[in-house]
C-alpha cells in the first residue's frame, strides 16, 4: 500500500500445466538441467520425478480454497500462499519459482492466487502459464477431457510436444484445434520438450507493461475477429492451418476505432466479468479512454480484473480500442455489441 511497487524485485513465478503424460516433467527437468546459471525453487505435487538435487524442491498439496468474498469462481491455492510466504525466508537463494501442477489441475486457482493474495502479490509476480500438450493425443483429450481444454485456453505459452510421433497432417490438425481455442498463446513445437529456456521463462505475460509489447501477436493472430472495421483481412489460413471451431471454448476479440467512453466502458467490463466471469478464462485489452492521453490496459482471469493507465498515446499513433476474451460458451455477438456500444 504505502510501499512502492517494486516489480523488478518480485520473484517471477512460472506455472507449468499439461495433461497427464504430455511431458511436464520432461520440460521441468530440461529447464533445471540447462546451464543457465539461474537457481529455481520448484513447487511440485509428486516428489521423486525430478532428477535434479541441487534445486530447492517443495512439495505442495494443491489445496484449492474458495474465498469468502461472494465470488463463486474465486478459488485460490491455499498451499501456494503458504509456500511462497515460506520461500521468502530463503530470499536471495533462488531467482525464480516454477509451479508444476497435476495433470488434471485447472490453472485458474493458481493464477487467481496472484490476483487475490496481497502478500503473494507483494513478494512475487505471475510470469506466465506454460502448457505442455501432447501432439499425438491432444485432439482426443480436447474431446474427452475438459481439464486439457482449460489448460490450452489458459496458456500464455504452449509447448506442443512429441511432434516426432505424428504426421504433418496430424500436426496441422492439432495446431488448428489449439488455435481454435487459444489463438493468442505463443506456440512452440517440440520433441522431448526441446524448447529454448527463454521461450518458456521470463515471458512477463501477466505484466501490464508488456501487453503493448505482445501487441503484434495480440493483433495479428486474430482468427476469430469478424469485425469488419479494421481493414485487415480474415487471414485464417496464414499458418496454413485449417480453421476449426471449438464447440464450447472460444476466443472473442473486438475492436473499435477511436475512444471509448469510460462511463460506459468501465461498467460494461466490470459487469461482463462479474456476470460471465465463470465462463471467461482470460481477457486482455488496450483501450483509448476519451480525454485521457494514456492508454488504458487491463487483463483478467475469470472475475478478476487488473487494469491501469499505461504510456501515453504517441504522436501520430491511431487511438483505437481492442479487447480479447477466451472462454467457454461466450456469446460473441453480445460481447462485441456490448463493447462497440462503449464507443465515445
Amino acid at each position, binding site marked *: *500500500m*504505502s*510501499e512502492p511497487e517494486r516489480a523488478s524485485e518480485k520473484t517471477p513465478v512460472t506455472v507449468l500445466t499439461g495433461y497427464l503424460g504430455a511431458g511436464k516433467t520432461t520440460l521441468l527437468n530440461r529447464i533445471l538441467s540447462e546451464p543457465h546459471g539461474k537457481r529455481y525453487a520448484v513447487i511440485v505435487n509428486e516428489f521423486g520425478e525430478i532428477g535434479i538435487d541441487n534445486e530447492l524442491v*517443495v*512439495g505442495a*498439496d494443491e*489445496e484449492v*480454497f474458495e*474465498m*469468502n*468474498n461472494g465470488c463463486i469462481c474465486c478459488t*485460490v491455492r*491455499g*498451499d501456494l*500462499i*503458504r*509456500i511462497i510466504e*515460506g520461500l521468502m*525466508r*530463503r*530470499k536471495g537463494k533462488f531467482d525464480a519459482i516454477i509451479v508444476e501442477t497435476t495433470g488434471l489441475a485447472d490453472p485458474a486457482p493458481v493464477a487467481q492466487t496472484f490476483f487475490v*493474495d*496481497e*502478500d503473494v502479490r507483494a513478494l512475487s509476480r505471475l510470469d506466465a502459464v506454460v502448457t505442455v500438450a501432447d501432439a499425438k493425443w491432444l485432439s482426443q483429450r480436447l474431446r474427452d477431457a475438459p481439464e486439457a481444454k482449460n489448460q490450452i485456453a489458459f496458456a500464455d505459452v504452449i509447448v506442443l510436444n512429441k511432434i516426432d510421433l505424428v504426421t504433418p497432417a496430424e500436426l496441422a490438425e492439432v495446431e488448428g484445434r489449439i488455435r481454435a481455442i487459444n489463438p493468442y498463446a505463443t506456440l512452440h513445437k517440440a520433441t522431448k520438450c526441446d524448447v529454448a529456456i527463454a521461450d518458456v521463462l521470463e515471458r512477463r505475460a501477466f505484466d501490464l507493461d508488456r501487453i503493448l509489447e505482445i501487441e503484434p501477436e495480440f493483433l495479428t493472430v486474430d482468427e476469430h475477429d469478424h469485425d469488419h472495421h479494421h481493414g485487415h483481412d480474415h487471414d485464417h489460413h496464414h499458418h496454413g492451418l485449417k480453421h476449426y471451431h471449438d464447440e464450447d471454448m472460444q476466443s472473442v476479440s473486438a475492436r473499435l476505432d477511436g475512444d471509448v467512453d469510460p462511463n460506459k466502458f468501465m461498467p460494461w467490463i466490470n459487469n461482463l466479468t462479474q456476470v460471465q466471469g465463470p465462463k471467461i478464462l482470460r481477457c486482455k485489452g488496450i483501450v483509448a479512454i476519451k480525454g485521457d492521453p494514456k492508454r488504458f490496459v487491463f487483463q483478467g482471469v475469470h472475475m478478476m480484473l487488473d487494469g491501469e493507465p499505461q504510456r501515453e498515446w504517441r504522436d501520430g499513433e491511431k487511438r483505437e480500442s481492442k479487447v480479447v476474451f477466451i472462454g467457454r460458451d461466450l456469446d460473441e455477438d453480445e460481447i462485441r455489441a456490448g463493447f462497440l456500444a462503449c464507443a465515445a
Partner: protein
Amino acid sequence: MTEPTNSLTAHVAPLDAGEHVAAAAFLGDEPALALAGGAIKLSGRDVVAHPEGAILCAVLDGDRLITGGDDGRVVATSAAGAEEIADEKGKWIDALAARDGALGWSAGKTVSARDAKGATKTWEAPTTARGLAFLPKGYRLACAHYNGVSLWFPNADATPQVMEWKGSHLDASVSPDGRFLVTSMQENALHGWRLSDGRNMRMTGYPSKTRSLSWSHDGHWLATSGAEACVVWPFKEKDGPMGKPPRECGVRPLRVTQVACHPRALVVAIGYADGLVMLCRLGDGAEILVRDASSSDGAISALAWDKQGARLVFGTEAGRAGLLTLPA
C-alpha cells in the same frame, strides 16, 4: 496522538542480526534472535539450529526457543545449545505451539503433540494445519485449518471437536483464561469462538492479514496487527468483543506488522512496516517511541518482552535488531 510524545530511543542498544529476523525471544535473561537462515543468535554466539534450512516458525517454551524449519525439523534451543525434537523428513514445519513443556507442531496435514515426558501422538487434520495453540487447561491442542478449528485431545481416541467457520484459518490463539479461541483468516479478518457454547464472533475491517496476535496479561484485551494502527479487541466481558468496537492504538499511515503486550502492564509494543517501534498504553493511548523508522530496515518482523517486562527485543526483515531496556 499520531506523533509520539516521548522517546525511549536512547535506551535501545542495537543488536547485530545480519539477516531476516524470523522471531525473537528471551531465553531466561538472554535475548535471542531466530534468523531466517536457520541460526539462533544469542549474546556473542550463534547456535545453528537448522544447518540446512530456513526457520519458518518459532515459539517460546520456558527458557527454550522452539523453531520449525523448511528442513522438516523441530529444534529446541537453550543456553545449553540446540536439541532436535522431531524430524518430519523434509516436510515443512508450518506451525508450532508450546505450553509447560508440551509441544505441538504441524507439517502439512499431520499434527503432532509431544507431552513434557516426550510421548508423541499424531493426528491428520482435514487440510493443512496452519496455526496451533494449546488450551490453558488440560492437554488439548487447537488446530486451525480450512473451514474451522479442530480441538484435539492427543491422549484421547475421540474425534476432535470442530469449531466450524467457512474460510481459510491461519494463526490460532487462545485467551489466557481459556474462554475464547481466535483465528486470523485469509480474508483479512479474525474469527473468534466462545469455547463454552461455540458462539461465533467476527472481527473484520482489516486492510490486510493479521499475522501477529497478543493477549494482555490479564486476558482482557487482544492486540492485533494488520491495520494502520494496533487494533485491540475487548475480551473482558462474557460476550467478548461482540457488539463492541475495538480500540486503536498507535495510529500511523503505515501497517502494523508485530504486536506484543507487556507481561505485567496494560501496555502494548507495536512494530510497523517501516521499522518503527512504539509502546502504547491501552488505557489512554499514550505513545512512547522506541525506535524511529528507517528506510532501509524493512518491516518489524519480531517483537518480544522478557518475563519481567523490563526489556523488549525486536528485529526487522532486513536484519536489523535492537534491545530496549526500560529505565528503572
